[in-house]
């Protein structure tokens, strides 16, 4: 590990499910240690594909990913957790045929960790999960599942936690609860990268945000700046893309 290296450096990444059909088209992005960075953008922008490519689930055709300075571009998905990267997928992010405790115990056992030592702090952070530990994960509500998914990701004690739309399908109240837990996760020293459709909530949580359009980052800026900027809303309506680059000033723009 290189001390001064970014937690995650994505360099000119091209990735897609089919050869020759890239969904991620030359994206570059740096996430600094201890940051929460949000990836936002309209539907079909390639946000989920970007984080899945980083996690080894989508084939990469060119570019590279560095985790704390270590090249993880060719690391298989099942080895990522051992490198310090945990992904919480958008949907189907818990094992519905296992109990809450089995979900967490399995994650601890896979990384050959002491079960109690790993489960204790996670249950302390998610007391509801402790109360429901014998319930089947498939019977949990959407918010509870999301909590379990985050908890499962944390069991491996990752250095970088990536979440794909953690607010998907959740009520505003439940979204706030989940995002509150993410603040606690960051406070515990874990770097967080999240993909979000809920722009307002994401920008309220993140230190910085990346606006992804058609598989490429278009704007990288502090969340506080993006919150004030009307162009983000316009982007979601498709207008921003049609403007000339010269009119898009102020923030760091990347084409």
């Amino acid at each position, binding site marked *: 590990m290189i001390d001064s290296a970014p937690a995650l450096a994505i360099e000119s990444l091209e990735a897609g499910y089919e050869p020759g059909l890239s969904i991620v088209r030359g994206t570059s992005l740096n996430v600094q240690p201890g940051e929460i960075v949000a990836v936002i953008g309209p539907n079909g922008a390639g946000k989920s594909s970007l984080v899945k490519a980083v*996690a*080894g*689930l989508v084939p990469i055709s060119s570019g590279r990913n560095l985790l704390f300075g270590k090249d993880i571009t060719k690391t*298989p*998905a*099942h*080895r*990522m*957790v*051992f490198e310090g990267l*945990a*992904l919480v*997928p958008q949907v*189907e*992010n*818990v*094992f*519905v*045929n*296992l109990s809450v405790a*089995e979900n967490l*115990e*399995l*994650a601890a*056992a*896979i*990384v050959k960790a002491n079960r109690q030592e790993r489960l204790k702090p996670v249950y302390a952070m998610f007391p509801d999960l402790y109360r429901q530990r014998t319930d089947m994960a498939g019977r949990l509500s959407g918010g509870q599942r999301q909590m379990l998914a985050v908890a*499962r990701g944390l069991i*491996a004690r990752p250095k970088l936690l990536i979440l794909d739309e953690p607010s998907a399908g959740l009520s505003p109240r439940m979204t706030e609860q989940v995002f509150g837990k993410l603040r606690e996760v960051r406070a515990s020293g874990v770097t967080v990268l999240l993909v979000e459709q809920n722009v307002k909530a994401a920008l309220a949580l993140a230190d910085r945000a990346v606006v992804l359009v058609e598989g490429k980052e278009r704007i990288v800026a502090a969340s506080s700046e993006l919150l004030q900027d009307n162009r983000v809303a316009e982007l979601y309506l498709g207008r921003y893309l049609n403007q000339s680059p010269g009119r898009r000033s102020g923030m760091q723009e990347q084409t």
Partner: protein
Amino acid sequence: MLQIAADGLIIGSVIALGAIGLSVTMSIVRFSNFSHGELLAWGAYLALMVASVLSAMHEDFATPIGPFSFGWGLIIATMVAAAMTAMLSLLLDTILFKKVRKYGSMTLVIASFGAALVLRNLLLFWQGGVPQYFSQNLQIAIPLLPRRVWGGLRFTPDQLLVLALTLATVSALHLFLRYSVLGRSMRASAINPALAQVTGIDPERILRATWLISGALAAVAGVFAGITVQLRPTMGVDLLLPLFAAVVLGGIGSVWGAVVGGLLIGLAESASVTLIGAQYRTAAAFIVLILILLVKPKGLFGERI
């Protein structure tokens, strides 16, 4: 009446053991393996070969144990055959299924048809088509209930042992899947392979474990079929349709579903032999399958492992 049920349980226990392996393969490797029946036949003949070698080495291996028709040689041979069939199953994956996996499940199914033909004909070439037996000793069925009680109930000691060992094997597999890390990883991979990967589960390790377990269970089922009926090179293909019926009936991916499905198919076959004639036994099993699927389209315990 009771005897029909008892005979059904014996047939069903063989089908159940074979169906578990098939069901686990279908839910984890995600294709219908039409060569699975041949693994039962190979397991039975490998056990016969090892038992014969052991008997030739020392006659005590062939001496029947207590009331049973076979000696310690067959018990040792069954364990050796289970290991050998597990390796054969893994070998099939390595040289065939692994290479065509990227082309999708339909290619895998067609490949498994080819593998079944090769395995069956190799067995015919090696052993010939004449039926064989693990033991030439005759067994007398023990009356457990007199005729006046629902027609009576009789079992041979071998049949009782097959029932007990099936129950023990299924229970052991249940405990393995429920409590071991590898077993839980297999259940996790069956329900959500992508999430299993990001949790740190090596998909190739899970596939290898699946092939080994299904092969070993197939061998045990084959030996049980050989003990209770006879050994024939075509016993695998003869059992294949009941195996699939049991898997679908119980629900793909469910171990207990495969057991219940196997027992129900066995009961249906046994009842049809007595009530409407042996020629309709397979048809009767499939009528039961269709009736249950009309009520529960995902099978009795669908989508669980």
